[in-house]
């Protein structure tokens, strides 16, 4: 059953807002998404009925909170097909990627190679650059094919020359293109190399299963999939988790501590020091329920329709579109520039019509520069966006001729 965005919208009170005299059009979903009533109510219910510490105290309230927390944890792990003990809660994708980079730094020696791509978000470039710099390794940055996905020939060549870690994003937050992650993981593993995946833009928008994609680690953020800010997920394969050092030390991640030494807790708790973001986990589980109910296939299909409609309406005489240009090559987001107008001004112009987009280097400066720009404007969709909203966008953008 295809998704009906009008029904969905009833669950998102913010979409009723009027901004600058126009009803809000929220096209900045790749940055962060709106939250349905179901998520907010789950958090509220937790606070008003079960709030307690978890995994520590012997009392009924704490057991009930722990039970909710562990159920939520299982649900979130299940959402990506992971084992419960392979999922670590983080603040966001950025923290997750920093954690893997630090955790795997033991594999990097003088001369070791980490391969990544020109497409990366800063969060998947800077942590690796730091690690290789510290360890005397080398970062190889592969380019793109003509279709604006990662250059597989270059990847293969780099892997053949020897490499410890291959890391890349799944869906580009600038281009909207989808990298061939199954081939990447197969290729990496064939060459005895680990495959780390930045799934910030894919897990929220399409069916995703770690058993199929087979990354050794992958990270994503709750706030980009209807969940709260402050909660993210890092999946790491069990055998790797067993061998790496914890990132943060403190309460909750140790079995026992003496004045001289300590014994770490089992995985995954060993990697979650201090009081966790309990409400974040509970909110994210409610978001997962919501996404499940709608169906990830349906969301992907809906976003495709929106992109197609958007592309049909854009006036190519004044708009430069980045990426492959054909609707079926994009996930639910697209970047562009209006010739001669800075994207911040484009965003401002659309804002006057109540349409929220993102502009700038999108935390992917090397990629934006490789596209020959210093900044771009980006439209990014989610399940509550409608074809009518796309029409409003296209109408509004036509008026920008005034500025050109």
């Amino acid at each position, binding site marked *: 059953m295809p998704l009906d965005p009008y029904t969905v919208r009833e669950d998102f009170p913010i979409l009723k807002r009027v901004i600058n005299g126009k009803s809000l059009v929220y096209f900045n979903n790749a940055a962060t998404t709106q939250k349905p009533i179901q998520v907010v109510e789950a958090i509220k219910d937790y606070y008003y009925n079960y709030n307690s510490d978890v*995994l*520590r*105290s*012997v*009392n*009924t309230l*704490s*057991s*009930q909170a722990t*039970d909710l927390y562990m159920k939520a944890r299982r649900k979130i792990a299940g959402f990506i097909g992971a084992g419960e003990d392979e999922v670590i809660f983080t603040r966001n994708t950025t923290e997750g990627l920093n954690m893997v980079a630090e955790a795997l730094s033991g594999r990097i020696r003088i001369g070791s190679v980490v391969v990544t791509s020109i497409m990366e978000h800063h969060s998947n470039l800077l942590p690796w650059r730091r690690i290789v710099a510290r360890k005397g390794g080398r970062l190889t940055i592969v380019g793109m094919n003509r279709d604006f996905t990662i250059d597989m020939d270059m990847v293969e060549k780099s892997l053949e020359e020897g490499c410890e870690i291959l890391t890349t994003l799944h869906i580009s937050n600038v281009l909207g293109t989808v990298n061939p992650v199954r081939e990447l993981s197969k290729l990496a593993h064939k060459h005895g190399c680990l495959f780390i995946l930045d799934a910030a833009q894919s897990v929220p928008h399409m069916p995703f299963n770690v058993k199929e994609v087979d990354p050794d680690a992958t990270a994503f953020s709750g706030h980009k999939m209807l969940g709260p800010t402050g909660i993210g997920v890092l999946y790491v394969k069990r055998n790797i988790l067993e061998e790496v050092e914890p990132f943060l030390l403190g309460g*909750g991640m*140790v*079995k*026992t501590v003496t004045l001289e030494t300590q*014994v770490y*807790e089992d995985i995954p*708790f060993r990697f979650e020091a201090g009081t966790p973001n309990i409400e974040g986990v509970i909110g994210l589980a409610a978001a997962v329920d919501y996404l499940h109910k709608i169906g990830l296939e349906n969301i992907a299909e809906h976003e495709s329709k929106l992109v197609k409609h958007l592309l049909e309406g854009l006036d190519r005489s004044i708009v430069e579109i980045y990426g492959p240009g054909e609707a079926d090559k994009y996930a639910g987001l697209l970047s562009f520039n209006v010739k001669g107008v800075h994207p911040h001004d484009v965003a401002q112009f659309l804002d006057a019509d109540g349409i929220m987009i993102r502009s700038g280097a999108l935390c992917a400066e090397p990629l934006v520069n490789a596209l020959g720009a210093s900044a771009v404007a980006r439209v990014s969709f989610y399940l509550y966006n409608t074809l009518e909203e796309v029409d409003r966008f296209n109408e509004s953008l036509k008026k920008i001729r005034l500025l050109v």
Partner: protein
Amino acid sequence: MGWRIKVEPRDLRDLLKRFKNPANYGVIENADIVLEETDYSCGDKLRMFFKLEGKRIMDVKFTSEACLFCNASASLLADLVKGKTVEEALNVKEEDLLRLFNTDSKSPRYRCIVLPLRVLKKAFQGL
């Protein structure tokens, strides 16, 4: 057997009577396997001793700095697996222990009750 937990001080008292000095508490000097674990709810320390003959469990004892529930559970588990094979012991489930206390995994004492089984499974891992 059967203690409903989460309810009455009386239940705790009954439990106490039976497990104040629990059976199987103590050390096996020439044990084949000794394993100590602490629970992450920050408190229970449990050390278990196993005497094997081939794959058969001849004796089990434990020492602890642990609560009533953990001690009771260790004591009952020791009775349960003595004379069994390692394989049979590995088939004991958390639910089997929880049932003895008339409770489930939502109990505040869940972790205390299952700790002995976790120690046992870790001890026999790979045997």
